[in-house]
């Protein structure tokens, strides 16, 4: 897989979106799972692009291009993702920050989808009103909030407070994720979340464990085709 990730990165940095797509398609045809593409290619490559920006070796424009290209390629994988068997659980996912940082949350939502959850991703820059309206309409088991930049933590805290006050019946579990929570292990608790996750795979596992701990069943769990 590191070779696939390397080839994928190489194509992206050459602004070759078609080449990057072909790298992913070739890996899938050789039997690599969608989960592994996400965890072993998309995730490390996104981190590497971020690192290269930090080191001033790629421009903001290139960083944005890489993110946009990966999002497009992820979209093309949806027919494979959406085929997992349903487990009658619903995830509502939202990103507090701007569009360019929503890719991590999108990956998390896709992992839930692969785990058989019905997922609704509201996108980026979601305010409390929009989030509450969606919660009332979808009645999710879990609300996942992504905070990729530390300065949006306060906004996430406000949103969690709103959900706690306004969405009581049924009250969804609230999970948070994103870079600030990696830096401060207690931050998720301090802003009122029920659980947090460092990555997409762990998010599905910990959400399932949390709901089981609350006496809920996870029917059909883990029977998705891409497990």
């Amino acid at each position, binding site marked *: 897989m590191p070779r696939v990730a390397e080839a994928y990165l190489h194509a992206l940095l050459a602004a070759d979106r078609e080449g990057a797509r072909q790298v992913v398609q070739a890996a899938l045809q050789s039997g690599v799972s969608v989960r592994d593409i996400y965890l072993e290619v998309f995730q490390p490559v996104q981190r590497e692009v971020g690192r290269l920006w930090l080191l001033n070796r790629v421009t903001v424009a290139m960083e944005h291009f890489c993110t946009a290209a990966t999002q497009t390629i992820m979209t093309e994988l949806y027919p494979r993702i959406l085929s997992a068997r349903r487990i009658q659980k619903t995830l509502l996912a939202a990103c507090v920050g*701007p*569009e360019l940082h929503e890719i991590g949350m999108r990956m998390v939502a896709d992992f839930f989808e692969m785990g058989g959850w019905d997922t609704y991703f509201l996108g980026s820059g979601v305010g409390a009103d929009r989030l509450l309206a969606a919660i009332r309409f979808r009645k999710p088991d879990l609300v996942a909030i992504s905070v990729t930049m530390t300065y949006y933590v306060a906004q996430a805290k406000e949103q969690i407070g709103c959900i706690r006050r306004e969405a009581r019946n049924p009250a969804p579990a609230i999970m948070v994720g994103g870079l600030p929570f990696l830096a*401060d292990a207690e931050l998720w608790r301090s802003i009122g979340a029920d659980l947090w996750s460092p990555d997409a795979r762990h998010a599905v596992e910990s959400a399932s464990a949390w709901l089981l701990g609350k006496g809920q069943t996870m029917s059909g769990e883990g029977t998705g085709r891409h497990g």
Partner: protein
Amino acid sequence: MDQSNALSLMEKLRSGTWHRHKAMERLPFVTALVEGRLPLDSYVGQLRGLAVIFSAMEQALADSTSPLLVRLRSIMKSRFQLLCEDLAFLASKCVPDILPAVRLSLEIAAEIRKVVLVSPGEFLGFIYVLEGTTRGNRVHLSDIKDCFHFPEEQGTAFYAGYGERTRIHWEEFSFILNQANRELHPAAMQGAEKMYEALERFHFALFPLTDSARGLTATALNPEAGDHPVPRDAVILEAALRAARRCWDEFPYFAIRYGSRGRRFADSDAAWLASLSDLSARVIADQVLWFGRVLSCRGMPTLLLERQLELLADELAGKGKAGAEEALFQAAADLRKAREQWMPPDCWARTRKRLAELPVLSRAADLPDLPSIFSAALADQRAGIPECLHSLMNWLRKTGRAADEELDGIRAVLAAAYRAQGDGKEEGGA
């Protein structure tokens, strides 16, 4: 035979987007401007949003190696600079942002950055529309003057654009754009449509104004800053901007190396730092560390951030923001402690003195802070950030401030400092 194939790109663009052009002229924003009732807030909002957009377009042009774009760039004036000039004049009016317009301008800028890489044809369409505004602006320059009566025609540089040269410039521009490969024409048409539509939405957000959706964003301080938060509390924001100015004055290196663009980033970065003060000490420390690395990789050693934090905390003293003051002082103290771990004060003083004695640095009278900057860059290198030293060396070389043998002299002093400190696994910079 398809007659449209015989047309030049400019002819296609003009006829294909004529309806869009006419629609722009009928926008409520333009009508209000012509009738002399456009609020100043809408005008400032337009300039701020266009600064975000033109900055992205000009940067995309500057990064491009396409011969056609290089030729276009060679005849195009930086209208971003004109916008900055106007905004500098209007800064004293303290106009709040129109948030939906800011969001739309950031979206357009993001689209420009993406399109230049994936669809050169569309990018040509973007340029056609954006550069074309110079002609419409000439028509409305008198409306701006009549509407706002700025003294000595200040605040109108963007609308004045190419001035008397507008027609000639447009002919040159058209001539070059018409050299574009015919295969790019359909995409260029699509790009022009897309940009017109985006600008329409942007102008609808600017006027008529609503009371809601007002506030201050980072783009008001710096059109290139993106959408990071700034303090909502005016006292904290003003303190941040004063601290930025003091730090800028303390280190002439900033102005000489980074110029007016750096000055704008100094303001927006300071505002961002101040916005951290509500967070936990641990999160602040983590963010400061990350940001210090970002700056260091761009040639600003962590020492400068350390000083910036000290000044910010100092500016907040006595303003009833004790928590923020303490958190920022602590963040500065952490950076100092880390720096001194890699370069204790005696080693720092010795290295600084030796560097100052080098002819290459002693003759740089405009840069008295350079020995400190180099010493700090060495500390950063020891802390695992070699990029700062590389960046400094490259800058001195590229600007002709130091010859190769003089750079060797700097390397020798730094290497000696390394050896004196022990465990020096590598020596000097690039």
